[in-house]
């Protein structure tokens, strides 16, 4: 028990160190923040002290000039305190935001460089949370955190110091209510934290009920469940209300409590201070100073207990973020990379075995292999069409060629070079990928074509658009190439999105083209445009296509028929039709209709 506790504490301090390490680049600014926070912490409590001096010396002494001089000094101190606490508050936020920026971009880059295997096993929502709200939860610690805690501590010390220097007996009497205050504050924080946990739970329950029922409202209505669901909502809404009313109780108790304790301190000052004044030693000015100190004393205590809580909640976020940063599933770059000098576009798969489980033993024949001993060659400028039923392993071939995944056995070569020895970016630069479900980003048509690569000239885009006959539709858009396609290109038709993805491949001008053709039928007019565009796109390039169009298979130099991860048949269209195997059936299923049309 105590063992695990100790371990936890150890872990926490390690975590905290790691969090604080993000402040290191700004240590000069952090030092400045310390200086400002200390100075402000000193200047604040200095004011009651100066007021005391003014009352006792100038006012009681009737020195009008002195009074004005003192007031001048007081205003200067007040202004300086205000200015310094502003500078400090902004500076700590500034430091925090710099560190948050560094951390956020680091987490994002880390996520982005992971292999697809990483993305296959993690919901995107979870990754987004890491980059956004988990990082955000550290912002309080990184900005205000340490500096503010020290600032409040020193404020307490300075106030105590001024009080003791004025009159130590009266100081002790005033501070005697402190334990009650500290106890009340921590009691309140604990109660409120528990109560807030409950309210958050109820808010979440309420939100998910609403979310679910607004989304599924038609089901509620269809099944005539309005009355029953209203009753359930009433119950949840009531729990929500009760949870809040409970927190109201604690707040209703806490605020008057603070007031009462402060008044108790005030009462003690009046009583004890008054008597001391009578016997001598305490002046009216000192009394007035103590009245003010008694009020000022409690604010830093409340702040400190707040900081304590944010620190705790930040730990949870930090743990998740660092957990993510410590997992690396990125595909490693080869230590010594080859150069791919003369890009011809020859592709070879040599006895490739692949399973989505990276641990799969290459010798284990019964394992869940997605590809089993797949071999083929495509010469520069030639085209390969891959056909097969769903789940035959067609898409996997594409993914492996682009090195989205690592194979377990065999080799994949381009122009005779093993792809694992090439820098990943070099490999992908020369391969153009066109996917069947076209993914468009929000942004303009041009952004989607160039993927925001500034090296691609507008002229090149226009020429490419003319070449594949995409220009007419783009120019018809109200904003032309500058048209915003909105999220996922929802303002465009399927065929139009397809053309944009062709255009994207064309402007990047790769030697090798990898194509996953769309299955869904588009209207005949667009179909014709797409057909021609495809021909333009494939001309003069090595291409691998998961074929759904008759013309693609007919024109392919070589057809590969995949079935359950294996190459079942290969050859040209004529040869395969003649052999009356799987291809013939697939052909009739998928393409016969197109021939008729």
């Amino acid at each position, binding site marked *: 028990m105590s063992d695990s506790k100790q371990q936890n504490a150890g872990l926490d301090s390690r975590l905290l160190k790691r969090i604080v390490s993000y402040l290191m680049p700004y240590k000069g600014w952090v030092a400045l923040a310390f200086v400002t926070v200390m100075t402000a912490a000193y200047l604040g409590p200095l004011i009651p002290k100066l007021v005391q001096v003014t009352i006792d010396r100038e006012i009681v002494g009737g020195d009008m000039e002195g009074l004005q001089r003192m007031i001048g000094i007081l205003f200067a101190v007040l202004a300086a305190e205000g200015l310094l606490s502003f500078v400090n508050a902004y500076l700590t936020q500034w430091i925090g935001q710099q560190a948050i920026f560094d951390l956020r971009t680091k987490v994002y880059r880390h996520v982005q460089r992971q292999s697809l295997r990483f993305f296959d096993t993690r919901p*995107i929502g979870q990754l987004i949370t890491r980059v956004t709200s988990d990082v955000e939860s550290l912002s309080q610690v990184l900005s205000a955190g340490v500096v503010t805690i020290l600032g409040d501590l020193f404020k307490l010390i300075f106030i105590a110091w001024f009080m003791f220097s004025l009159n130590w007996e009266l100081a002790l009497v005033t501070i005697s209510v402190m334990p009650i205050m500290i106890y009340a504050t921590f009691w309140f924080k604990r109660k409120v934290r528990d109560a807030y946990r409950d309210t958050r739970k109820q808010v979440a329950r309420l939100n998910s009920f609403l979310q679910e029922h607004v989304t599924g409202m038609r089901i509620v209505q269809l099944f005539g469940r309005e009355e029953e*669901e209203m009753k359930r909502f009433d119950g949840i809404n009531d729990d929500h209300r009760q949870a809040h009313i409970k927190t109201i109780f604690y707040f209703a108790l806490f605020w008057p409590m603070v007031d009462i304790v402060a008044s108790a301190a005030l009462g003690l000052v009046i009583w004890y201070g008054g008597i001391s004044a009578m016997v001598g030693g305490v002046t009216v000015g000192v009394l007035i100073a103590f009245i003010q100190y008694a009020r000022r004393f409690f604010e830093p205590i409340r702040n400190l207990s707040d900081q304590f809580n944010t620190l705790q909640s930040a730990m949870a976020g930090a743990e998740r973020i660092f957990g993510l940063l410590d997992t690396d599933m990125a595909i490693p770059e080869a230590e010594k990379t080859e150069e791919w000098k003369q890009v011809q576009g020859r592709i070879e798969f040599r006895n490739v075995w692949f399973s989505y489980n990276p641990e799969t033993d290459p010798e284990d024949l019964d394992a869940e292999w997605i590809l089993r001993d797949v071999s083929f060659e495509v010469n520069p400028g030639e085209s390969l069409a891959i056909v097969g039923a769903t789940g035959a392993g067609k898409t996997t071939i594409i993914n492996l060629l682009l090195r989205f995944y690592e194979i377990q056995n065999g080799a994949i070569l381009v122009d005779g070079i093993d792809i694992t020895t090439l820098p990943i970016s070099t490999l992908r630069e020369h391969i153009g990928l066109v996917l069947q479900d076209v993914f468009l980003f929000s942004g303009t048509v041009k952004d989607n074509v160039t993927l925001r690569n500034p090296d691609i000239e507008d002229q090149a885009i226009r020429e490419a658009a003319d070449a594949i006959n995409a220009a007419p539709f783009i120019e018809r858009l109200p904003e032309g190439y500058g048209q915003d396609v909105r999220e996922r290109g929802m303002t465009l038709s399927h065929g139009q999105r397809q053309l944009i993805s062709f255009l994207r491949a064309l402007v990047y001008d790769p030697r090798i083209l990898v194509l996953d053709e769309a299955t869904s039928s588009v209207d005949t007019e667009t179909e014709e445009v797409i057909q021609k565009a495809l021909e333009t796109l494939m001309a003069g390039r090595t291409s691998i296509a998961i074929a759904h169009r008759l013309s693609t298979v007919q024109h392919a130099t070589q057809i590969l028929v995949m079935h359950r991860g294996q190459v079942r048949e290969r050859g040209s269209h004529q040869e395969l039709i003649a052999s009356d195997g799987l291809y013939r*059936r697939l052909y009739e299923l998928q393409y016969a209709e197109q021939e008729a049309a």
Partner: protein
Amino acid sequence: MHSLWRLNAYYWRYKHLFIPGLICAVASAVFSIIVPMVVRQAIDSIPRFVTTYRAFEGTPVESYVYADAFVSLMIFGAIILALSLGSGLFSFLMRQTIVVASRHIEFDLRNRLYDQLQDLSHDFYLQHATGDLITRSTSDIEHVRRYIGPAIMYTTRAIVVIITAVSVMFWISPTLTWFTLIPMPFLAISVFFVARMVHTRSDELQKQYSSLTSRVQEALSGIRVLKAYAREENEAEAFDEESSQYRHRSLRLAMVEAAWRPVFVTLVGASTLIVVWVGGSLVMTGEITIGNIAEYIIYVALMTWPVAAMGFVITMIQRAAASMTRLNEIFDAVPSIQSATDHMLLEAGLSHEIEGRITFKGVGFTHPNSGVRALDAVDVDVPSGSTLAIVGRTGSGKTTMVEMIPRLLDVEDGSLEIDGKDIREWPLETVRGSIGYVPQDVFLFSDTVANNISFGRMEAEIEDVRQAASEADLLANVDDFKEGFETFVGERGITLSGGQKQRASIARALIRQPSILILDDALSAVDVNTERTILGHLREHFGKRTIVIVSHRISAVQDADQIIVLEEGRIIERGSHEELVDLGGFYASLHHKQQLEQEVEDFV
């Protein structure tokens, strides 16, 4: 501001809380305002004690004087404590009534909102995004609540404190009061502006946060494209840009927030210094006492919060008014599909039972959003107990057609009759009560499997649930779950496969033993064998139940009494399976294709 008037009824409803609450607010303020007067009395009494004490110093009376001072000062201290106990008690009661009442009103508002949401028809949901409706029922209501509770509480307290304190101060010394009050308007104004700037800037920050989030969302969803085109570096830079925008906005907000406390402290401090300055001069001329200075210092401290609160309250009211306007939009919406009243039905002399005959007479429909003609002159008569199958491409109008039967949509042209009576003359409850509907997009609630199935019939026993599950071929699966029918579906529990969800959705419809069963492409996620089993179970009820089935699979529709093929909202083919195969049209080619598919599937 007009939008907030509607809340008056709620104030009235909770008057038993508001009236005592406001009285408590006043009482609490009065108690706290007396404290400084006692302090002044105490401080001013000290010089008197000192003089008396000095006079009797060294005499036997000295100890009596000391004791007198001791007791008097203790009484002052005790009065201060007692006053703040009184103020504290009333402020406790004030929060326990007014803030609690605001939670009650929030509860009522939200219940009413949800009730209204349940009444609104399908078209309303097409026009309003889910997220937007959720925001209205959560944060908009919260804004209104803050106006109802805290805003009113602060205002009352502030008015009492400010008026009392200022009157007492004027009574003591008008000159000093004028000077002391100089910073107060600045305080209220600066709080108002700061609060407004904080709101707009945090809204901006929130917007940038969403933009950052959707950037990540998009990049990670399109990660294959980014990687394939080696654009990761570029995207990372774009993300840096978003992050730096976020940092910029955060700092803009931080600037205002950093200014807020110093401005507050400086203005309050300035008031105190003015008291010392002007008050000090007045003490010298003998117009006031030093005790008055202490009193004023406490008044300033007491007044600062109420004055600052006035600045907050104004922004609270502005926000609440905007939120209430949005809420009223929902409260005032009228459901487009209205139920016929029972009265009309009784007059027509009809029984409450629906037998299940469905007749489409020249039905046409145009989608209000896209303006697409979804259905055009559709004529079909489905005698009760028979089966109608609908096939056709995506977007041909199949779903629109079946959605009209439970009146999710109302016909535009022509008419739809149930048992020979226009559907609009039936009570909505009766129509929907006799229909088992299995929608295309499966929607299950995050609840147990049993509750999801019995959603179709609340009073169902577990035997009925098992029976329905068995008819939907789900029983074996459920029995395999560790928790059986008590297994949680969705986020908190097990994730059902697409097919299992679909079958649960079918079971939910079947448990109602409806006279009309509608399956809108409801077997798409199950394999052919399961489909066969489920259809076999349905067939047991043939003749007793009208079935409308939409499907892409020939195997699911071939046994129907009549099959129609829809194309762009029109019926292009109709007849039995054999008739349509012989016709050699769309249906026949679909049939041929699916036979071939089966062959490939079986190819070893």
